[in-house]
């Protein structure tokens, strides 16, 4: 079966709202890391020119799983996946909704307080300007930190694996057994995570998510026992020991 993708690009004008530009200038930001969702990432020429005309440099990158430069996916919620080598004073997200720019916020949870940047959101449809920062995900990150602690202390752990080919990470999840030989891991298969089924397995003391990495964050509060993402499970002790934005909340 052939699968075809159509980006559904936005056909209106993609530019920065006056307020967005005013804010960047007011903050005296000199270098901006520029990203957009797929509907907007191929139409950033006007935005780039606006920044350049205001004396603001822009940098960008091609994230690990994306198809084009400047595109950000919801799963780019770990800083390293962006592959951004250059330094920037802040992020600028061009697009609508919060799902994509929140990935940039989550990506800063393990950075030190000095490295944390704000995310300036510019919605070309509504001509709206909005700011997002680590405080927007404070409740989630606090529980996430608690889930990391739970994981380190737990002896029976449930591992969630999806059958969706694009998200499935079964083999990488088996590495948990090597890394934590004193814990017993039980593996659960599903398509979309069935949150209403979790309580039917009371022997699970904490969950490890290997499906979409946003499940570990956006759905954190749906997991009574707590959940952490696979890569964080593998580094749980080091993450909790860091002088990071999450640990400082």
């Amino acid at each position, binding site marked *: 079966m*052939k699968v075809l993708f159509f980006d559904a690009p936005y056909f209106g004008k993609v530019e920065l709202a006056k307020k967005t530009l005013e804010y960047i200038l007011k903050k005296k930001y000199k270098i901006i890391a520029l990203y957009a969702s797929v509907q907007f990432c191929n139409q950033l020429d006007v935005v780039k020119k606006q920044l350049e005309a205001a004396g603001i440099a822009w940098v960008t990158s091609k994230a690990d799983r994306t198809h084009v430069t400047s595109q950000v996916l919801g799963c780019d919620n770990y800083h390293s996946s962006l592959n951004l080598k250059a330094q920037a004073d802040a992020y600028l997200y061009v697009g609508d909704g919060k799902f994509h720019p929140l990935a940039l916020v989550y990506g800063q949870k393990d950075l030190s307080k000095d490295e944390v940047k704000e995310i300036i959101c510019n919605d070309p449809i509504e001509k709206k300007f909005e700011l997002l920062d680590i405080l927007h995900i404070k409740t989630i990150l606090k529980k996430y930190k608690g889930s990391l602690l739970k994981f380190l202390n737990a002896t029976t752990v449930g591992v969630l694996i999806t059958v969706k080919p694009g998200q499935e*990470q079964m083999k990488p999840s088996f590495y948990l057994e090597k890394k934590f030989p004193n814990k017993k891991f039980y593996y659960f298969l599903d398509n*979309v995570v069935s949150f209403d089924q979790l309580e039917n397995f009371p022997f699970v003391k904490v969950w490890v998510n290997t499906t*979409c990495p946003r499940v570990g964050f956006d759905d954190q509060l749906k997991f009574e026992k707590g959940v952490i993402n696979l890569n964080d499970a593998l580094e749980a002790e080091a993450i909790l020991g860091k002088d990071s934005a999450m640990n400082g909340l």
Partner: protein
Amino acid sequence: MGYDLELSKVVQEITKSKGKLVCIQLPDGLKPQAMMIVDTIQAETGARVLIWLGSNFGACDIPLGVKNLGVDLMICWGHNPFHKKVGW
């Protein structure tokens, strides 16, 4: 709506592939357009169109089992190809 669904290109692709059974998958924001998309495809190509009801979080989220129904072509809007990597 403001988004280009590129329907003439979609029709061309279906015609070229001689697809008779097509499944369309839309992100939540585009789901209200399903009726217009189905009607257009059916009128222009004669293919039968199935609408995926469930999630469409990204190109990582292609429905399973559709192939078993004899679907010739899966058409997904709002995403471009996803480059999966081992782990995150």
